[in-house]
Structures are given as C-alpha cells and as structure tokens.
C-alpha cells in the first residue's frame, strides 16, 4: 500500500467510524426512549452488531468476533428468554427526579470526557501501553509459542491465569443460574398437582 492509499484509507475509516458511532448514539437514545422492551432487545442487538463492525475497523477482529457472537447473538436470545417470563412493556413511572438525574448524568459524562484529555492518542507508539509488554508480544510471541495470532498466544499463554479466571467466571455464572432457576419448572409442576408448598 502506497502512502497516498494509506492516507485515503485513514480518512475513509474515520468517516466510517463517525457514521457508526452516530448509529450507536441514535440506537442508545432509542433504547432509552422506547417502552416496548421487545424493540429495546432488538435495538441492543443492533447496537452490539454496530460495535462489532467498529471493532473490525479498529483491527480488533477477535474482539469483534466475540461482540457479534455474545452481544448480538446469545445476549439477545437470553434477553428474549427473560422477556418471555416477564412483561414486554416497561412500566411507566411518572414524576421522580428527572432533573436531578439529568444533572448528575451530565456532570459524570463531562468528568469522563475531561478524563480522556489525559489519555494518550489512539495508536500513539509512545503510549505507556505500547511500551510495556506489547513490544515483546509482537516481536517474540511467534518464536516463543509458535502461534501466529498474537491475541491467542497472549490470551492462552502469557495471560493464561486471567483466561482461567474468566473460564471459572463463566462456570460460576452457569452454576449460579442452575442453582437459582434451574429447578423451578419441577417445583411448579408439583404445585400444579395440588401440593401447597410456597
């Protein structure tokens, strides 16, 4: 790729990024506004899909893959499963402290944006994160692990403890779901037969 091509590509990806971030903002506003929870679930799925596309533009294909599979796929199905158990319209609450909430959210948002001014620029080679262990991963991970995908070698080898912890988290989540609601239908069936346990 020549330098000119690179510049054009950079502008193009900025345009795409802006468009997709706008999409995400609009989706988020619609999620906040809508009362129909079925539409909200669909919109969160769309939000995740746009986020996944954004990660692809940022060259984070592994993250994009996970976002598309979990955020847009499984999470949507689980939310729909939850909707099937509850009502699909949000209860409208009048009054409340809407103004206070708006002020609080605005202040928090302003503080967060202010904090980003301290952050290094995106892709800055002198940023702390790019000077610590990243050079070693990029230079040596292929030789040390024989795995061409750096993300995989970092996840499964250099950061094997973290990934093991994540696996245990998923295990615990499923175990918790089994413990809390896994046996409910059986109980209900027994109650239907005439038992009067609470």
């Amino acid at each position, binding site marked *: 790729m020549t330098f000119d091509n690179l510049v054009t590509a950079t502008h193009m990806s900025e345009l795409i990024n802006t468009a997709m971030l706008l999409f995400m903002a609009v989706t988020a506003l619609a999620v906040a506004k809508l009362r129909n929870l079925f539409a909200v679930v669909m919109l969160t799925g769309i939000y995740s899909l746009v986020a996944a596309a954004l990660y692809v533009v940022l060259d984070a294909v592994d993250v994009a893959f996970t976002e598309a599979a979990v955020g847009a796929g499984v999470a949507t*199905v689980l939310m729909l499963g939850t909707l099937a158990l509850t009502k699909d319209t949000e209860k409208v609450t009048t009054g409340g402290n809407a103004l206070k909430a708006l002020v609080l959210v605005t202040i928090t948002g302003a503080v967060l944006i202010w904090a980003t001014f301290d952050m290094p620029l995106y892709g800055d080679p002198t940023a702390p994160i790019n000077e610590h262990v990243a050079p070693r991963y990029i230079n040596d991970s292929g030789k040390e692990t024989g795995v061409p995908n750096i993300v995989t070698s970092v996840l499964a080898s250099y950061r094997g403890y973290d990934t*093991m912890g994540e696996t245990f988290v998923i295990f615990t989540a499923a175990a918790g779901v*089994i413990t809390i609601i896994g046996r409910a239908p059986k109980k209900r069936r027994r109650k239907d037969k005439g038992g009067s346990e609470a």
Partner: protein
Amino acid sequence: MIHRKSILRVVSKFLIPFIMLFAFYVQWHGDFGPGGGFQAGVILGAAFILYAILFGVGFGRKVIPPWVTRLMLSLGVLIYSGTGVLCLLLGGNFLDYNMLSHDPVHGQELGITLVEIGVGTTVTAAMVTIFFAFAGQSERDDEGDLEAPADKEA
C-alpha cells in the same frame, strides 16, 4: 404437527451442521485467525439454542441432556486447570506449557490447544445451560404438540 414455523425448521436443519462446523473451525483455527475457544463455544452453543428455539426445549434437551451440559461445564474447567497441574507435575510452573513437550514451542502449542478446548467446552455448556434454564421456565406455555417428554429437571 409440523405446520408451524416449517420453513424456519427446514432451513435451520440445513444450517445447524454448518454452524457447528464453523464453531469447530473457529476452535481449531484460533491460533491462525481470529477466534478461539470462547468464540467457538458461543457459536456451538448457539447451534443448540437455535435448535431448541425452533423445535422446543423438550426436544433440545433430548439432543443435549442436562447431564451432558453439566458434565461439559465442569469438564472444561477441569481440562484447563488440569493442564496447569500437569505442567506442575512435569516440573514447571502452573500453566507453564514449555514443560509439556521436549521442544518448548511444541509444548506451548499443545498447551494453548488444550486450554482452548477447555474454554470451548465450558462456554458451550454454559450458554446451553443458561438458555435452557431460562427457556425451561416457560416451556409448558409453549405449543404442546412438539413437546418431548422432559427427562429430569433442568
């Protein structure tokens, strides 16, 4: 009675093998391209979830019974931590894959493959388990025609 959702059911029967194949591709190809155990587990779990959505939780549980998902759930974690313990027994640190083979690079490749299998197994089982636990709550409200006799509890 197969009239309802018949197009979706037929199409999904064509699609599910490919979804599963793609899951295994992502699992075994994670060291070359994007993907790995987590993504593969989610995709494989999604194949079972798709089947359960279209054919009912009862039939879904016939395909992958609760004891299988529970076994997979704990087996994956066991494979992962077992790999670590194996490295300990072979004289290295916990999860130090260099010990798994005479050549450190081969050991790393083997170790990464093993832990990714562990992650994939647990994630598949977790996705299916969580979905069945939620969907099982309302299974008796579904159409009864396709309901296979429920095995045991969720």
